[in-house]
C-alpha cells in the first residue's frame, strides 16, 4: 500500500492526535475541556484549530490551491499569533505532524519503499512550514494595522470634517 493511501486511511486518528498535541500546550485544567467540547460556538478555539489542521492535512495529501492552503494555515496561526508572542511557538504546530505520522504509522513505515515516500511527505511538511512564516507575518502585520485603524477611526470623522483624508497615495 502506498503511503498516501495509508495517510488518508488514518486521517481521522492522525488529525485527532495532532489536534490533541496542539491543545496540550494549554493549561492542563483547560486542555481537557478544549478536547471534549464539540460545540463549534461554545468552543471556537478548538473548532478553528481543528478546521485548520484538517485543511492543512488535506493539502498534504493532494494538490490544493495556494490560497486554500494559506487559509487553512491561517485558521491555526491566527489564534497562535495572538497568544504566544514568539514566532517559533506560533508555527511549531506544523512540525508536530511529523512525529504524529511516524508514531501512528510506525509499523508500516518499516517497509523500505515507504520510508522514501515518507521523506517526500516530510519535505512537503517543510514546505508548509515555510508558508507558515508568511501567514504568521501577515497576522502580526494585521495586528499593527488594526491598531492603526482604531486610531484612524477615532479621528477619521474629524479628518473628514477638516477635508483632509487619511488615504495613502497609492490607494
Amino acid at each position, binding site marked *: 500500500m502506498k503511503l498516501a493511501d495509508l495517510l488518508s486511511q488514518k486521517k481521522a486518528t492522525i488529525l485527532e492526535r495532532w489536534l490533541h498535541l496542539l491543545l496540550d500546550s494549554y493549561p492542563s*485544567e483547560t*486542555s*481537557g*475541556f478544549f478536547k471534549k467540547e464539540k*460545540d*463549534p*460556538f*461554545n468552543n471556537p478555539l478548538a473548532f478553528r484549530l481543528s478546521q485548520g489542521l484538517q485543511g492543512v492535512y488535506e493539502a498534504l495529501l493532494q494538490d490544493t490551491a495556494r490560497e486554500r492552503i494559506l487559509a487553512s494555515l491561517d485558521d491555526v496561526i491566527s489564534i497562535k499569533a495572538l497568544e504566544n508572542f514568539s514566532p517559533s511557538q506560533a508555527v511549531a504546530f506544523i512540525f508536530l505532524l511529523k512525529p504524529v505520522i511516524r508514531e501512528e504509522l510506525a509499523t508500516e513505515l518499516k517497509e523500505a519503499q515507504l520510508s522514501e515516500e515518507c521523506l517526500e511527505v516530510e519535505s512537503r511538511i517543510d514546505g508548509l512550514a515555510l508558508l507558515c512564516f508568511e501567514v504568521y507575518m501577515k497576522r502580526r502585520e494585521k495586528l499593527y494595522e488594526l491598531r492603526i485603524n482604531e486610531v484612524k477611526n477615532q479621528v477619521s470623522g474629524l479628518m473628514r470634517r477638516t477635508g483632509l483624508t487619511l488615504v495613502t497615495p497609492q490607494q
Partner: protein
Amino acid sequence: MTDFFKLHFFVPLAAVLGLVVVAYVGVQANLQLLFGVVVPYMAALIFIEGMVYRLIQWTRSPVPFRIPTTAAQNKSLPWIEKNLGEKLDNPETTKHVVGRMALEVLAFRSLFRNTRTELRQDPDHPEGARLIHWSYKWLWLGAIAFHYAFLVVILRHLRFFTEPVPGFVYLLDSVDGFLQFFVPVVYLSGLVLLVAAGYLLLRRILRPELRYISLAADYFPLFLILSIAITGILMRYFYKVDIVAVKDLALGLATFKPKVVAGIGVIFYIHLFLVCVLFAYFPFSKLMHAPGVFLSPTRNLACNSRWVRHVNPWNYPVKFHSYAEYEDKFREAMIEADIPVEKES
C-alpha cells in the same frame, strides 16, 4: 496530582472517616447518652441558631441596586408580547418573580439553560454538514436527582419522629419503594441519592478544570452525605438495627422526652452522628446556598427599575462637575460658537 488537590481531597476524607471512628468508639465506650441525645440536640440547636444568625447577617446588608439578570425581553411597547416563559425570565411583577424563584428553586431553571450546538457531518445535506442544537443537561440532571432524592429521604424519615405517622409519609414510602425485588423493600430515593452524589463527586475528581477549583469545603459535604447514605443503606438492608428501638429514641427526641434506648446497633449511632455533623455544619458552609438562593438579588427582584423607583438606603450625595463650573470654564468659546449660556460674561 497537585499538593493542593491532596490537601483539599484527603483531609476531608480523613475527617469523615475520623467522625465514623469517633462515633464507633463512643458507642463502644457506652456513651449512648452523648451520641443519642446530647449530640442530636446540640446539632439541632446549632443548625437553627446558625441558620437564623446567617440569615440575619445577610439581610443586615441592604440591596442598594436593582440588579436582576434579565433573561428575556423587558417590558416595552404594548404590542411587543411576551409569553409566559419570557415573563418569568424577565419578571415585571411580584407574581412573576415568585414564578421565577419557584422555577429556580424547584426546577433549577438556570442550570437548565445549558445548550449545545454541533456541526454534524451529513452527506445528504447540500453543505455536507448541518447544525444541530441539543440540550446539555447532565449537571442539571445530577443536581436535580440529588436534591429531590435527598428531600424524599428526609421526608421518609418523618416516620421515625411522628406518631401517628402522617398519611403522606406512607404514600411516599410506597411510591419510593414500588420496586419490590428485595426484602426489605428497596427505596429508590436512597439509591438515586447515592448515585447522584457519586456523580457529583466523580465529576469533581475527573474533570481537570473542576478538580482545579474544588476545595475541601466541596469534598467534605459530599463525603459526609455519601457516608450518611451508605450507613443508612447498610443499616436498612444488611446490618439491621432494631427499628422499634430507633423509633423510640427518635420520638423521645422529637417530644422533648429524651431517653436512652438500649439495644440499637452501633451503625445507627454512626449514621446519626454523621447526620448531626451535617446539620451542625450546614449553617457555616456552602450548603447555605439553599436559603441563600432566595435572597439572590439577580433573581428575586422584579425588573421594574425604570417605572418603579428603587431606593438605596445608603445613597449619599456625590460631588459632580456642575453646569455653572462648566460654563465658567467654556463661556467665551460657547458664546463664540453660538451655544446659549446662562451668564453673558
